[in-house]
């Protein structure tokens, strides 16, 4: 097991080191943004994959994180804090906010909770889009300073290698946290809620608090990703945080496999990258995209990770059959 982990770590390091050698300019920006989105997607993985709670609120917390950074680092409200401090503060602050919101919304169950998060997205979007003092209104907020990491300012063009290193290391850290959660008491409690909430309750799990904690973790991830996004793109507008994009993030998580740590990154890369790759067919791209989602749900409801599992299973079965046949052959020989 240790050996497998080592190989995985080596592979990830190699990918992080190799990718910038081949990607420059705009494709690099796209990859960076996709990796940012993967962090939000991990939050959805915790809520939907582990806990079985369909929440659209991820974009709203992304927006809150983004606007928090935009306000505190440009000095719009009279105070200016260093970008690094803002980046560290964001997930802490919004984990708290998400905890409070979760305390209220998770009193509801199942579909009712989903509807409440839709309502939250709509309310937040309306404020983002209209309330100028805090959110810049329809024009958004521009001129946000780029990330300064211990006296070293990241190059402002989002395509630079240092952005890629920083973001991919963040993604790896978040992925490790998610893996730990999956193996922890919290992860198992969430899984039991997903599979049968009443049974979980009778086993003495505080289902309400467990779900609120999961919601708060998802909020922290999403706000962190929003903060990175805004420093990377140096502009924030409300359009990013509407209901359609909320659905897009759910699709991102489902596409790769909502319970697969690697699948989430692949899903994020596909959802963000494919439309850019097929820019020439822009008109048809979205159409194919919708058809692909439906086809995926029909044939592979567990996402791309499900395909991998299926292939592994097939190979295993084939091997078992082969060894059995060999065994039979040996038996007849003797």
């Amino acid at each position, binding site marked *: 097991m240790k050996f497998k982990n080592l190989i995985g770590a080596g592979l990830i390091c190699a990918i992080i080191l190799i990718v910038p050698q081949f990607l420059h300019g705009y494709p690099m920006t796209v990859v960076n943004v996709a990796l940012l989105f993967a962090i939000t997607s991990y939050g959805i993985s915790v809520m*939907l994959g582990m806990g079985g709670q*369909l929440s659209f609120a991820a974009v709203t917390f992304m927006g809150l994180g983004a606007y928090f950074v935009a306000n505190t680092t440009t000095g719009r409200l009279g105070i200016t804090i260093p970008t690094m401090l803002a980046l560290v503060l964001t997930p802490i602050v919004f984990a708290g906010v998400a905890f409070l919101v979760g305390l*209220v*919304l998770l*009193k*509801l*169950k199942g*579909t*009712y909770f989903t*509807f*409440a998060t*839709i*309502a*939250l997205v*709509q*309310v937040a*979007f*309306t*404020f983002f*889009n*209209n309330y100028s003092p805090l959110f810049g209104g329809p024009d958004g907020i521009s001129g946000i300073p780029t990330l300064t990491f211990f006296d070293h300012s990241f190059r402002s063009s989002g395509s630079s290698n240092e952005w890629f290193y920083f973001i991919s290391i963040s993604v790896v850290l978040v992925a490790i946290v998610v893996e730990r959660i999956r193996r922890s008491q919290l992860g198992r409690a969430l899984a039991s809620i997903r599979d049968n*909430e*009443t049974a979980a309750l009778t086993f003495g799990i505080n289902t309400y608090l467990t779900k609120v904690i999961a919601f708060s973790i998802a909020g922290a991830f999403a706000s962190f990703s929003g903060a990175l996004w805004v420093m990377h793109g140096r502009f924030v507008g409300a359009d990013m945080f509407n*209901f359609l994009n909320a*659905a897009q993030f*759910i*699709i991102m998580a*489902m596409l790769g496999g*909502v319970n697969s740590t690697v699948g989430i990154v692949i899903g994020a890369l596909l959802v963000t990258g494919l439309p850019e790759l097929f820019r020439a067919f822009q*008109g*048809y791209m*979205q*159409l194919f*995209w*919708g*058809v*692909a*989602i*439906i086809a995926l*749900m*029909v044939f592979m*409801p*567990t996402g791309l990770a499900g395909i991998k599992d299926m292939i592994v299973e097939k190979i295993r079965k084939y091997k078992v059959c082969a060894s059995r046949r060999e065994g039979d052959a040996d038996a007849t020989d003797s």
Partner: protein
Amino acid sequence: MSFTLFGTLFINGLSMGVIYAMMAMGLILLIRAVGILNFAQGELFMFGAYISAALVLDFHLPLPIMIPAAMVCFAVVGLVFMFTIYWPLRKASYAATTIIATMGAAIVLRELAVLIWGPLPRSMPPLVVDEGRPAILHLGDVPLQWQNVLIIVIGVLLMYLIYLLFEKLYVGKMMQAACQNSYAANLLGVPTILTIAATYVIVSILVSVGGYLVAPIFMVRNTLGVLQLRAFAGVVIGGFGNIKGAIIGSLIVGLIEVFSTLHFSAYRDVTVFLTLILFLLLRPQGLFGEKIKDKA
């Protein structure tokens, strides 16, 4: 607020409420029939608006021919929708799967509309025209748009007919039986596939007629689908799974929306959805819903 203003706003709100109610009723029918929350409801609505715009603007059909032609188109859309989004997924084990599939369908319908009819919004003439402008009905001294009045009349009539079909007629009883326990219904000789197909066709027609009616007010564009969120709000406010509740909830949503534009037009979504959140917290079973029971 003067009485004339109040009257105009009230009728506007009511007509928007009826539009939301049509979508909401469709949602409930689908939930009862196949247990699927349809996130493409708004897109079916939008597609209905586009189809009727095509029949009126491109084919120049007169009204008596246009109506049956539109009905046939709406029914076909409903059937195609059923056999692509519902039928292959009816045995899916993961509840989120079908929801995501309807989201995919929403994207497909939005993009199809742009591919077929172009990205520019199309303007539909209202049903009653007075010298090239939307006709105004003067009720006492309250000026009302004819289109709004017609929305209320046609919408209520259509919903009442569908309600009668489901609650009073034998066919409706069969459909309800198939919804409640499709296995037992099958044993009793109810063709489940036919009743489900019929439900999809009815829902598609109901929602698309809503799109046709609202087209002259909002223009025909592929973002019309976002109105479905208001229908969701109406469904929850009225009480989940309850047709009467969903209709009244949607009317409330329409009225709240229109009256809040009077004071803070940019924030009308906030009033609608804060009301929804308040309802969810204080009375999650909705106005007419039964107390939610946990499934053991």
